[in-house]
C-alpha cells in the first residue's frame, strides 16, 4: 500500500461507505426503515477503525500529500477516538428514526460519515488549508444534523443558531490563518512553527493565534464564545448532540494542540498563549458551571456542562508541552466516552420526540428503567469526576499536568468548579432515583438492541478509562512526544 | 502634438469602445429585424416590409416608437431597483463584447485594433459577466411587485443558475485543448489545418458544443427554454411591468446576449476569425484585405449562429418547467462532465 493511501486510509474508507450509502438510498422507499444503511455505516466505521489500527501498526510518521497530511500516533489517537464516537452514535441512531414517518434517514448516516471524514482530516492535517476544509466539512454536516427533526419547531432554530454562530467563528478562524500567513508566509503548521520565532511581525503573529483561538473557541464552545451551545443542544436530536458535543470538539482540540505546538519555538509567544488559554479556561469553567446551575432543561444543563468541560480541557493546554498534549488528548477521550453515553441514554429514554425535557421529567425513572438509569447515573458520576471513571482520570491527569507546570491557581479554580458542578449533576441523579414519578412519563418504546450495545460500550469505555487507562494513556503520551519532538 | 504611449493607449481604447458599441447596438437592432423576417418566412408570411426597402428601416422605427412611448412606473414598485434592473441587464450584455477578438491580431502603435481588451482570463470575464446578468432579471421581477413578474424572474434566475454550470463545464474541454483562458490564445489554438483544426471538428468538441449551445439558449431565456416569459402562463414574465425605454433595454439585452453567445460559440468551437481554409490557401491580397478578411469570416460565423437561434425558435416547442430543470441537471451536466473526462483522457493518451 502506498504511504499516501495509508495516511488517509480511514478517511477513504468512510468516504467510500458514505457514497455507497447515498447510492443505495434511492432504492428504498423514502420513508422506509433505513436500518440496513445504518448497519452499512457501522461497518464502514469499523472498517475505518481497522484502517486506523493498521496505521498504528506501521509505527511510523508519514508526511504525505506535499506536507499537508501527517500520520503519526497523535493523529491515530484522534482517528480512533472519532471512529469510536461515530460508531456509538450510529448504533444509537439505528432505531432513532421512525420508519414510515421520518424521511431522509438514509442521508443521515451518510452525513454522519462525511462529517467524520472532515473531523478525521482535521486531526491529521498539518496544513491550515486542509484543517479549514476539514473543519468546514464537519461543521456543515453538524449544522444539518442539528436541524434534522424538521417536524419539531425547535429543530430549525437550533440549526440556524449553530450555523450563524459557527460561520461567524469560521470567519475569525480564517482571519487568524490569514494573519499567520502574513506573519510567516506559509499556511503549513510546521512552517508557521519555525516562522513564528523569527517573524518580523510578532504582534501580528500573536494576533493571528488569538484570532484562531477565537474561531476554534467557538467551535469547542469555550466561554465567552459559548452562547450558541445551550440552544443548539436543546433543539438538536439527542444522538446528534452526543456526536457534536464530542467528535468535532475532539477534532478541534486536536487542531488547537497542533497550533499550541507551533508556539513552543518562541518563549514569549508561548507564555502569552498560555495566559490567553488559561483565561478562557477559567471563564469557560465558571460560566459553564454557573450557567448549568440555573437550568431546568436536562439537555441544556448538559450543554452548559460541556462548556465547563471545555474549560477543564483547556487547562491542559497551559501545561508543559508533552504533558499538555497527552493530558488534553486523554481528557478528550474520557469526555467523549461519558458524554456520548449520557446522550445515548437520553435519546433512549426520550425517543424521537423527546418528551422528557426538564430535570423534573426524569424523576423516578430508575424505577421504570433501572438499567438505563444506572447507566445514566454512571455517566453523570463520571461527568462529576468521581474516581474510577474516565471523567475523573481525565480531570486528574489534566490538573496534574497543570500543577506540574506550576499553575496551581488554575487547578484550584478548576477543581473548586468541579465541586460546584456536582451540584447540578446530582440534581439530575437524585431526580432519577427519586421516589416520586415525573409527570411527563413519556411513552417508552423499548430500547433498541443496537443502542444497548452502544450504551454498554460507552459504560465500558468510561470505566476502562478510569480503571485501566494505561493503554490509552500510553497512546496519548506517544502522540505527545511526536508533537513535541517535531516542533522543537 | 506628441502623445505619450499611455495617452495613445487611452485614446485608441476609447475609440475602439465607441466603435464596437455602435456596431453592437446596430447589430442588435438588425438581429431583431432578421428574426422577424426569418420567422415570417418560415411561417410563410413576409415579415416587416413596409418601412424602408425590404423593411430595412424597421428597427429605426421600432426604436423611435419605444423611445417616444410613455414611461409607465407602477405605484408599488421598488423604484431604485425597478430602474436599475434593465440597466444591469443591458450593461452586462454589452460589456462582454469587450473581450471578444473579432479579427486577426492587427496592431497599430502596439495596440490591438480588433479587440477592445485582450484580457488573459477573457473566457472567465465573459462567464462572470453573464452570471452578473442574472441580477437584471431577478431584480426586475422582484421590484415589479407583481406575482407574474416574480414568478418569471424566479424561473429565469433558477434556470440561469442551473444552466450556468453546464455552460461552464462545456467550455472546459476547449480550455484544456488551448491551455489558456485568453480568447485570442484559444482562437490561435485552432489554426493550422483550416476548419479541420477547429475545436468542433478537429478537437472533437462537438459534444461540448452541443451542450454549450443548449445551455446558452437557456441562459439567454430563448426558445425552447423561454419559460420565464411564457406568455400563456406568466403574461410577459419579468418584464411585464416595463414599458418604453426600460422595456427596450431588456429587449436589447436579450439580443445582445444572443450576439455574445454566438460570438463565443464562434471563438471557442469554430476558430473565431480564422478562415475555414487557413493554412491551406496562401495569404493573398493587400495588407488591409488580410486584416479585414478575418472579420468577414467572424461575422459570417456569428450570423450563422444567430440564424440558428431564430430557426430553433421558429421550430421547437417550449419545454415544461420540470423538464427544463431535469434536462439541465440530469442530462446536460453529467454529459458535460463526461465530455471533460473524455477530452482529458484523449489528451493524456496523445501526449
Amino acid at each position, binding site marked *: 500500500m502506498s504511504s499516501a493511501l495509508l495516511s488517509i486510509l480511514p478517511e477513504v474508507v468512510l468516504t467510500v461507505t458514505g457514497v455507497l450509502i447515498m447510492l443505495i438510498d434511492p432504492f428504498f422507499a423514502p420513508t422506509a426503515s433505513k436500518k440496513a444503511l445504518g448497519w452499512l455505516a457501522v461497518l464502514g466505521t469499523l472498517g475505518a477503525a481497522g484502517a486506523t489500527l493498521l496505521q498504528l501498526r506501521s509505527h511510523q510518521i508519514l508526511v504525505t500529500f*506535499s506536507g499537508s497530511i501527517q500520520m503519526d500516533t497523535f493523529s491515530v489517537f484522534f482517528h480512533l477516538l472519532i471512529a469510536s464516537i461515530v460508531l456509538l452514535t450510529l448504533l444509537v441512531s439505528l432505531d432513532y428514526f421512525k420508519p414510515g414517518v421520518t424521511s431522509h434517514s438514509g*442521508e443521515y448516516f451518510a*452525513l454522519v460519515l462525511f462529517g467524520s471524514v472532515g473531523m478525521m482530516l482535521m486531526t491529521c492535517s498539518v496544513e491550515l488549508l486542509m484543517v479549514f476544509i476539514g473543519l468546514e466539512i464537519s461543521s456543515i454536516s453538524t449544522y444539518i444534523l442539528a436541524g434534522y427533526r424538521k417536524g419539531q419547531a425547535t429543530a430549525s432554530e437550533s440549526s440556524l443558531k449553530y450555523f450563524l454562530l459557527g460561520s461567524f467563528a469560521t470567519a475569525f478562524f480564517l482571519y487568524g490563518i490569514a494573519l499567520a500567513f502574513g506573519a510567516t508566509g506559509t499556511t503549513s503548521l510546521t512552517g508557521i512553527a519555525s516562522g513564528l520565532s523569527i517573524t518580523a511581525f510578532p504582534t501580528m503573529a500573536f494576533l493571528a493565534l488569538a484570532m484562531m483561538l477565537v474561531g476554534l473557541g467557538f467551535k469547542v464552545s469555550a466561554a465567552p464564545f459559548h452562547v450558541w451551545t445551550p440552544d443548539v443542544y436543546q433543539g438538536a436530536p439527542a444522538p446528534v448532540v452526543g456526536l457534536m458535543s464530542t467528535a468535532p470538539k475532539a477534532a478541534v482540540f486536536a487542531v488547537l494542540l497542533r497550533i499550541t505546538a507551533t508556539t513552543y519555538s518562541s518563549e514569549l509567544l508561548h507564555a502569552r498563549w498560555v495566559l490567553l488559554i488559561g483565561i478562557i479556561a477559567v471563564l469557560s469553567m465558571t460560566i459553564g458551571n454557573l450557567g448549568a446551575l440555573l437550568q431546568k432543561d436536562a439537555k441544556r444543563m448538559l450543554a452548559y456542562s460541556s462548556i465547563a468541560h471545555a474549560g477543564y480541557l483547556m487547562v491542559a493546554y497551559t501545561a508543559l508541552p508533552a504533558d499538555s498534549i497527552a493530558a488534553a488528548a486523554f481528557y478528550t477521550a474520557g469526555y467523549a466516552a461519558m458524554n456520548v453515553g449520557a446522550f445515548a441514554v437520553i435519546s433512549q429514554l426520550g425517543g424521537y420526540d423527546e418528551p422528557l425535557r426538564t430535570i423534573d421529567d426524569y424523576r423516578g425513572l430508575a424505577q421504570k428503567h433501572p438499567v438505563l438509569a444506572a447507566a445514566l447515573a454512571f455517566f453523570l458520576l463520571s461527568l462529576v469526576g468521581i474516581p474510577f471513571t474516565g471523567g475523573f482520570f481525565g480531570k486528574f491527569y489534566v490538573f496534574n499536568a497543570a500543577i506540574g507546570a506550576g499553575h496551581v491557581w488554575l487547578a484550584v479554580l478548576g477543581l473548586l468548579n468541579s465541586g460546584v458542578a456536582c451540584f447540578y449533576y446530582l440534581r439530575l441523579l437524585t431526580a432519577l432515583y427519586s421516589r416520586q414519578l415525573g409527570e411527563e412519563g413519556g411513552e417508552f418504546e423499548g430500547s433498541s438492541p443496537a443502542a444497548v450495545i452502544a450504551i454498554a460500550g460507552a459504560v465500558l469505555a468510561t470505566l476502562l478509562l478510569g480503571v485501566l487507562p494505561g493503554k490509552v494513556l500510553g497512546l496519548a503520551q506517544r502522540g505527545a512526544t511526536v508533537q513535541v519532538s517535531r516542533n522543537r | 502634438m506628441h502623445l505619450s504611449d499611455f495617452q495613445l493607449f487611452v485614446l485608441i481604447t476609447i475609440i475602439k469602445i465607441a466603435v464596437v458599441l455602435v456596431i453592437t447596438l446596430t447589430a442588435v437592432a438588425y438581429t431583431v429585424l432578421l428574426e422577424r423576417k426569418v420567422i415570417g418566412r418560415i411561417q410563410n408570411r413576409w415579415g416587416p416590409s413596409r418601412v424602408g426597402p425590404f423593411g430595412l428601416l424597421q428597427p429605426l422605427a421600432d426604436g423611435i416608437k419605444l423611445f417616444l412611448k410613455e414611461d409607465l412606473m407602477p405605484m408599488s414598485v421598488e423604484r431604485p431597483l425597478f430602474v436599475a434592473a434593465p440597466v444591469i441587464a443591458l450593461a452586462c450584455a454589452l460589456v462582454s463584447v469587450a473581450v471578444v477578438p473579432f479579427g486577426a491580431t492587427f496592431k497599430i502603435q502596439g495596440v490591438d485594433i480588433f479587440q477592445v481588451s485582450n484580457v488573459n482570463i477573457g473566457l472567465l470575464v465573459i462567464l*462572470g459577466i453573464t452570471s452578473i446578468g442574472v441580477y437584471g432579471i431577478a431584480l426586475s421581477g422582484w421590484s415589479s411587485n407583481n406575482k407574474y413578474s416574480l414568478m418569471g424572474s424566479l424561473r429565469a*434566475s433558477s434556470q440561469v443558475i442551473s444552466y450556468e454550470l453546464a455552460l461552464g463545464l462545456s467550455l472546459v474541454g476547449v480550455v484544456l485543448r488551448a491551455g489558456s483562458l485568453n480568447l485570442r490564445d484559444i482562437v490561435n489554438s485552432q489554426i493550422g489545418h483550416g476548419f479541420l483544426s477547429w475545436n468542433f471538428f478537429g478537437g472533437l468538441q462537438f459534444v461540448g458544443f452541443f451542450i454549450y449551445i443548449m445551455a446558452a439558449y437557456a441562459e439567454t431565456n430563448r426558445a425552447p427554454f423561454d419559460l420565464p416569459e411564457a406568455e400563456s402562463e406568466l403574461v410577459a414574465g419579468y418584464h411585464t411591468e416595463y414599458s418604453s425605454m426600460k422595456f427596450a433595454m431588456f429587449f436589447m439585452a436579450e439580443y445582445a446576449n444572443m450576439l455574445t453567445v454566438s460570438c463565443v460559440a464562434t471563438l471557442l468551437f469554430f476558430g473565431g476569425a480564422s478562415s475555414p481554409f487557413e493554412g491551406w490557401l496562401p495569404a493573398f491580397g493587400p495588407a488591409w484585405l488580410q486584416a479585414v478578411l478575418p472579420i468577414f469570416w467572424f461575422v459570417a460565423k456569428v450570423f450563422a449562429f444567430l440564424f440558428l437561434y431564430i430557426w430553433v425558435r421558429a421550430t421547437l416547442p417550449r419545454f415544461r418547467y420540470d423538464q427544463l430543470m431535469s434536462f439541465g441537471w440530469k442530462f446536460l451536466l453529467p454529459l458535460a462532465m463526461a465530455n471533460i473526462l473524455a477530452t482529458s483522457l484523449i489528451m493524456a493518451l496523445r501526449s
Partner: protein
Amino acid sequence: MNELVDTIMHLALFLIFGGLAVLAALNLLLQRHPINSALSLVVVMMSLAVLYWSLGAEFLAAAQIIVYSGAVMVLFVFVIMLLNAGEEERTKGSKIASIAGFPGAVAIFCLLSFVFLSEGHKLGLSHLGGSLDEATSNISQISSLLFTDLLLPFEVTSILILVAILGAVVLAKKER
C-alpha cells in the same frame, strides 16, 4: 515616468474601488431591506474583484465575480425573493445589539489597524499586478499547484460540496 503613471493609476484604483467597497459595506449595514444589503454586498464583491486584480490575482478576481457575486449572492437574492422577506423591524433586541455591536466592531477595527499600521512599514509596497494588456497569467501556476501539491484539499472539497448538497436537499425539501 511610466512608474509614476503606474503609481497614480494604482492609487486611484485603490481609492476608487476601496472607497466604493467601504461605502457599499456601510450601505449594507444601514439598509433595512435584506435585498438592498445583498446588493450592497455584490457591489463590495465587485470592487474587491478589481482590487484582487490590481494585486495580481486575476483568476481570483474572475472567480470572485463568477462564484461569489454570480452564484452565491444570486442564491441570496433568490431566497430573499422566494421568502418575500420584508424590511426588518426595529426591536428591543436590535437596540441592545447596536449598543454592544458598534463598540465591539470599532474595538476590533482599532486593534487590527493598529497592528497593521504599526507593523506596516515592514510590509512592502504592492505593484500593479495584472498589467494592462496581454499579461502573463498565473492561472497555470495556480492550477499546477492545485493539482499537485494541493491535490488532496482539492479532492476533499468535493466531499464538502457533497455534504452541502445533501444538506440543502434534506433541509429545504418539504416534508410530505
